[in-house]
């Protein structure tokens, strides 16, 4: 096995492991948030949580696959480590970006759902009698 192929295999192993770790963290800790957003509807929260994680996996594995090619020949262990640092670093940044994007979506969903029960922004100027409909 050449050093180039070893580099690719290490890259794939590390990237896949990282993606799975981030996705599981998101899945585990996002659930509480979603249950709150959906007012305790756990079935719906689990379903949305699962769909979000599927999207997360697709985007990240898609990136990892597309970014695989090095474009030059790796001959020494030193070059291999350098190539890995660039590739894995990029994967980490994409994962971080995706993670914050997910948090942003969660917080926006939560804000929206909380807003539906918030009181009016201003107090009435006066009160009047309302004729009740028969």
């Amino acid at each position, binding site marked *: 096995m050449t050093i180039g192929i070893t580099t690719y295999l290490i890259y794939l192993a590390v990237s896949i492991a990282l993606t799975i770790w981030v996705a599981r963290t998101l899945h585990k800790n996002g659930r509480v948030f979603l249950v709150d957003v959906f007012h305790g509807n756990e079935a719906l929260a689990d379903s949305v949580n699962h769909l979000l994680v599927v999207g997360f996996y697709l985007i990240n594995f898609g990136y990892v696959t597309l970014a695989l090619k090095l474009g030059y020949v790796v001959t020494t262990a030193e070059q291999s480590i350098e190539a890995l640092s660039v590739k894995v670093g990029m994967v980490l940044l994409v994962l971080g970006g995706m993670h914050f994007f997910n948090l942003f979506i969660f917080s926006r969903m939560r*804000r929206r759902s909380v*807003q*539906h029960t*918030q009181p*009016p*922004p*201003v*107090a*009435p*100027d*006066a*009160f*009047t*009698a*309302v*004729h009740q409909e028969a």
Partner: protein
Amino acid sequence: MFSLTVLYDPECGLCRRAHEWLAEQAKIVDLHFVPCASDEARRRYPQLNHDLTKKDLTLVSDDGGVYFGPKAWLMVLWSLVRYREWAYRLATPELLPTTKRVVSMISQNRYQISRVPVVNRLTR
């Protein structure tokens, strides 16, 4: 609060256009539209000063709270899914004075604004 009644000026083109726009928006709280100072308005709110409702937009909640002018505008925004956030933003102490000024200006000049060709085209 489950519904809000908007007492609008049926003779103003801008108000009619706003009415059409509001009818299409997704709502958190239902809006009912009743022409101001009409028989229907007098029947619903026998104790309200209906001459005042002709001067500026008035809104009455189902529990009898009366919102006048800029407050009525903010309450209308508050009833909409997409603009509730904006109602809170515009009602903050920093922005409320500006909101009131702008809303009063539009309200007082609503007949002139309705005559502006672009608005006119939209309201026909």
